């Protein structure tokens, strides 16, 4: 026997209840979207996080959008580290391709470049995110895995060792750029391979693709003492990085695009590091390329590095 007490499905819903449900939905939407919209347009902590999430790729942003992003980065640094920084977006200089040359006869392994780089580029002080590694190699050895980047003898140079500083080689055919699934890393017109830290998804494919171990991952929010933060920063360079993104050497983009020399070159006590414009026919780099016995690291991989090593002899 069918139960006649159950009303048929076509029974109309009580109009009072329907109005109530409608009203509640509208009220809920208004209550939630209002603050979200307010937060997005505002410059509070939540608004800045949302702006970071919804921000476009660096190369697709307009001038105004970049200015907004720079202001947002400065606010976030103030909030996280309590230090006022200046974030800029200095554009590449026309007719300049940066290149590095390193004299292996002069490098004694003092490692001042590493310290200066970490300081200049606001690198994490608590993790292995140093952009330069000076590898102590046994005499006669050329294979990178045989070297020791953590050497700490009383005095350098140690007998029977030579020192090979390795950093991003700013390849003209960068394998890291090809490996990135989201296009968060690319080669700038002046030859510097850069990362948009806000576009990086942290998959670390680029770190695997790089044959020079030049890319490092921020496993934690960078540990930065307030008084050690470098104030002059660049969007693609040394601004404090968020957690979960890759970072690398950018030839000190914030310095070199203004005409200064990179921090590692400025710190080197022996003058082993030479930096300049590859396209300047009278420059130091071209003199070295034309007159010295040069080599590039792992050249056989076809990465076309813009980083040459040479010796005095």
């Amino acid at each position, binding site marked *: 026997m069918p139960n006649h007490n159950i009303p048929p499905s076509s029974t109309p819903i009580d109009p009072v209840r329907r109005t109530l449900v409608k009203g509640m939905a509208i009220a809920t939407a208004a209550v939630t979207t209002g603050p979200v919209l307010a937060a997005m347009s505002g410059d509070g902590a939540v608004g800045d996080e949302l702006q970071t999430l919804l921000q476009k790729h660096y190369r697709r942003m307009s001038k105004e959008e970049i200015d907004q992003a720079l202001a947002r980065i400065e606010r976030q640094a103030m909030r996280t580290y309590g230090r006022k920084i200046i974030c800029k977006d200095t554009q590449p200089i026309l007719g300049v391709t940066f290149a590095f040359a390193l004299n292996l006869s002069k490098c004694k392994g003092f490692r001042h470049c590493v*310290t200066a780089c970490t300081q200049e580029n606001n690198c994490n002080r608590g993790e292995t995110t140093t952009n330069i590694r000076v590898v102590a190699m046994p005499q006669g050895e050329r294979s990178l895995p045989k070297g020791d980047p*953590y050497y700490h*003898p009383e005095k350098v140079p140690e007998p029977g060792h030579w020192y090979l500083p390795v950093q991003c080689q700013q390849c003209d055919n960068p394998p890291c750029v090809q490996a990135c699934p989201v296009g968060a890393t690319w080669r700038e017109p002046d030859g510097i391979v850069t990362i948009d830290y806000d576009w990086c998804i942290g998959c670390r494919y680029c770190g695997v693709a790089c044959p020079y171990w030049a890319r490092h991952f921020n496993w934690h929010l960078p540990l930065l003492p307030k008084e050690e933060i470098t104030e002059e920063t660049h969007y693609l360079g040394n601004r404090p990085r968020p957690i979960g993104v890759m970072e690398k050497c950018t030839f000190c983009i914030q310095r070199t695009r203004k005409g200064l020399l990179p921090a590692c070159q400025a710190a080197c006590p022996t003058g082993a590091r030479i930096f300049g414009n590859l396209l300047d026919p009278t420059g130091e780099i071209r003199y070295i390329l034309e007159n010295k016995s040069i080599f590039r690291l792992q050249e056989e991989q076809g990465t076309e590095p813009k980083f040459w090593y040479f010796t005095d002899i």
Partner: protein
Amino acid sequence: MYRIKFQFALGFTLCLLSLPLIAGESLPSFQLAGQTIPAHCPNCHAWRPPQPQRRPLLAPHDKLLLKHGQEALWCLDCHLVQQLDRLQMRSGSSVPFTEAWQFCSECHARQVRDWRFGSHGKRLGSWQGEKIILPCSACHDAHLPAWKPAPPAPPPPQSRFISHAKP
């Protein structure tokens, strides 16, 4: 006699002709940075002339470590006898300490050429524009030119998960 005159005239003409060539291949201009260490010699030798004989250096020179050129050189091989704060060039002229690179180039021509073109020594300031470079004495002690071993900066922090220690 005429032949000699002709040769002289020809040589002079050739010299004049080659001047623009030399000027065209001029070395890059540069500016020296940093201070030059003053010599202490004139403190005493201004009134007491130096002994010209080569000899082992005794007091008050015993603090002076002379290890340049495997100890083959001694004071007056480089310093001008009459004025010890100048350097004696092979040509007979002399240069002050601020122009020491000219004197150094007499033996270390390759290094000084590399220095002028930028592959030896250190450039300061900017990678473009006028070249400001450190003079020889900024890095090399003229009496002990070799670099001395020194303690390195601390190693980078190691990952907690991967041991890079050597077996």
